[in-house]
């Protein structure tokens, strides 16, 4: 009995001492600010900041190698709190970006090349003729972006194109990086006019592949008062490209586009950026974008 108690006590004490010594010897200095910053970060580990998860970003901020405004999901509030913890100025926010789908070819617009019955994953479908749609540049529509969005901000629309909820989208770019077709792009949230097509084939082929494809007619280029949109050619082909730095969102190109590949959208309400929204030019009610007023 006495041996039992003694031996266990001694064993426990020995292990305790060994662990205690080891604790001193192998102690790891962790800056408490890392933990504090990790706590206030959104914790979605979306990777939008370019660091491996929120923990990685917190470490980089404390080490001084990352800017305070890199967390796109955290917005202003998180930046202010981080500035408090770090004792430095919060600095300016990044211009908020959102993911935009550069494809309008839903199932009613783009004919199918074949019936796809495989795994419900865009990457798998993309290995076969770049997806089941006749347009090999378009959105495959199996919802890989829906699954990868860390904030649950994308859902599949009725026409088998993803619908992005701009109240939720933080512009982290997780879906952009995951899309096998590269039809999702990060664009400043204030920009309203987008080329909703990624097809670089010649006009006739593009039109055959999808009713709402860019047919490279250059009508947008000719009519743009700012010279912001032009049909740009590269090794693959050509397509209308908007220079977002010049685009004022007037929407003239949208009315001129014969296939409706261009689209003007309603202003996105970015909650912490009201001032910027006010400066976006809204065409007055009844405007038919004739361009005469300019």
């Amino acid at each position, binding site marked *: 009995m006495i*041996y*039992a108690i003694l*031996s266990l006590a001694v*064993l*426990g004490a020995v*292990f305790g001492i060994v662990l205690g010594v*080891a604790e001193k010897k192998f102690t790891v200095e962790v800056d408490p600010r890392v933990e504090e910053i990790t706590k206030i970060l959104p914790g979605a580990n979306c990777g939008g900041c370019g660091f491996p998860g929120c923990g990685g970003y917190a470490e980089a901020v404390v080490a001084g190698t990352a800017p305070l405004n890199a967390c796109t999901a955290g917005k202003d509030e998180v930046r202010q709190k981080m500035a408090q913890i770090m004792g430095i100025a919060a600095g300016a926010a990044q211009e908020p970006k959102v993911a935009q789908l550069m494809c309008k070819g839903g199932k009613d617009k783009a004919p199918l090349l074949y019936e796809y019955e495989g795994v419900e994953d865009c990457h798998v479908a993309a290995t076969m003729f770049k997806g089941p749609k006749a347009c090999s540049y378009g959105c495959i529509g199996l919802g890989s972006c829906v699954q990868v969005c860390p904030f649950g901000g994308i859902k599949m629309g009725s026409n088998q194109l993803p619908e992005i909820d701009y109240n939720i989208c933080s512009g982290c770019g997780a879906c952009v990086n995951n899309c096998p077709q590269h039809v999702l792009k990060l664009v400043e949230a204030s920009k309203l006019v987008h080329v909703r097509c990624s097809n670089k084939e010649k006009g006739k082929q593009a039109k055959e592949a999808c009713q709402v494809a860019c047919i490279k007619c250059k009508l947008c280029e000719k009519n743009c008062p700012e010279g912001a949109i032009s049909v740009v050619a590269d090794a693959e082909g050509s397509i209308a490209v908007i220079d977002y730095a010049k685009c004022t969102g007037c929407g003239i190109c949208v009315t001129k586009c014969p296939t409706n590949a261009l689209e003007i959208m309603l202003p996105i309400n970015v909650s912490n950026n009201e001032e910027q929204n006010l400066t976006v030019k809204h065409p007055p009610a009844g405007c038919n974008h004739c361009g005469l007023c300019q």
Partner: protein
Amino acid sequence: MQEMMIIIIGAILINNIVLSQFLGCCPFLGVSKKLSSAIGMGVAVTFVLTIASLITWLVQKFILVNLGIEYLQTIAFILVIASLVQFVEMVIRKKSPDLYKALGVYLPLITTNCAVLGVAIINIQKSYTFMQTLANSLGNALGFTLALILFAGIRERLEEADIPKSLQGMPIALITAALMSIAFLGFTGLL
């Protein structure tokens, strides 16, 4: 030497700790979703299991038997394993922060991995010598790692497979584990 090889191969293939003796099923099912974490867990368990078996053998031989208190085996062994896992955690955290992050919560969970205690007790029950204990625990640990890595590889493929909805996730994993167990039965006549 030959005897030790027989013990090691027997422990890896014939009496595989997970697939034949059904010890350590919790990490086998829990950490087998990704191949990378399965490898990390396998390495951690191999390390802890081998060291723990040797220390528990020494504790049994020089403390418990000498004092005639073998009935305290379980509690003494758990004490050894728990402290050892704590120690390993501290060392890994200091020496390899990346491995520490990769193992995450599974490192402290090795404490409750019944394979570790199970192998320690089997070594005593079979009255192995010190070297035989080393061979047996190393073999069992490698067997655990082998089973875990094989299973993780299969499960990664299952993610892409077209599985009926009612079987997705854990059900198909359990069926897979059962089939692997049956496959390992084929090694019975090896030695």
